[in-house]
């Protein structure tokens, strides 16, 4: 952990703060009478707002989670050096890729 990673971690956390609170609200609203694809997709399909919202969410979450898991791996398993870097980037890129595909799935479908 150094100043660069720290800034990315805290910065992504600050970005995630309003997104997560809104997402919690959406979860409660969407689950008010059982989840259905029609309901969800009616909200997200073709929506510039939700597309941007969730794309930003994915990038911030991928950054935040990758760095967080990196720190845990370094502290609790002793992983270090190249293996640690590769692990962090792999996890972060995996989350970003899966996440953006998911956003595309519900916005562009």
């Amino acid at each position: 952990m150094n100043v660069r990673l720290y800034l990315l971690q805290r910065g992504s956390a600050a970005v995630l703060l309003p997104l997560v609170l809104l997402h919690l609200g959406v979860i409660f609203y969407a689950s008010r009478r059982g989840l259905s694809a029609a309901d969800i997709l009616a909200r997200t399909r073709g929506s510039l707002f939700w597309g941007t919202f969730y794309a930003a969410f994915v990038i911030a979450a991928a950054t935040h989670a990758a760095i967080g898991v990196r720190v845990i791996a370094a502290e609790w398993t002793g992983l270090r050096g190249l293996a640690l870097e590769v692990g962090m980037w792999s996890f972060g890129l995996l989350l970003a890729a899966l996440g953006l595909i998911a956003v595309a799935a519900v916005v562009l479908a």
Partner: protein
Amino acid sequence: MAEIAVSLWRGKADGSYQLYRVPQRDNQTVLDVVTWVQRNADPTLAYRFACRVGMCGSCAMTVNGRPRWTCRTHTSKVVRHGKLEIGPLANLPIIKDLACDLRPFFEKWQAAKGVFAPRLTRVDAIEEIVPTTAARQAADAAIECINCAVCYAACDTVRWNPDYLGPAALNRAWTLVNDERDTGQQQRLQAVAAAGGCHICHSHQSCQQHCPNALNPTASIAGLKRHTMAAYLKGELE
């Protein structure tokens, strides 16, 4: 007379606890207990103390799992069901029994650049320290550290990160970051912003909970995080 069943750590890292029966007294500190064992039960016991009145920090040991000054720990406060467990400070190599090697602690102290870099020489007029400025108050709030290593021993982040400079070293660096007479700010911020620096701290606050001088290294480290963040964003840090 009541007795305490005292488990003392004997040996090095691969040692073990040994049981001693020590007479319990009305006015007795944990240091008194350890001293009694060395004088009456086993003269081969190794331990450290100096002032025995809570000023030097030499007698710091792990008592019932927590680091404390043994000369300032009354047995009535820590003995449970007639038992007491005493070991050397955690997170440091064990030399023997209750004495640990403080060299890593002091090496990290140096590495955090907690050293005053003066601007003036002895032939210049003495520079006045104004005690009421915000920076000086911040420095004064953290300056009473006597390097006892209790915070270092209490910190799990130190345990999990061998490179981590630790609460005491960073706390001292913070006092100098706030010293308006100091000229070593660039190197100091660089040192605390590197790997092993202040950004590893997770704000567990074990340091603050255990400091016998009621210092707050977590707050000092938070200050370092703010300063290094600002310096980095201004391009002053690499």
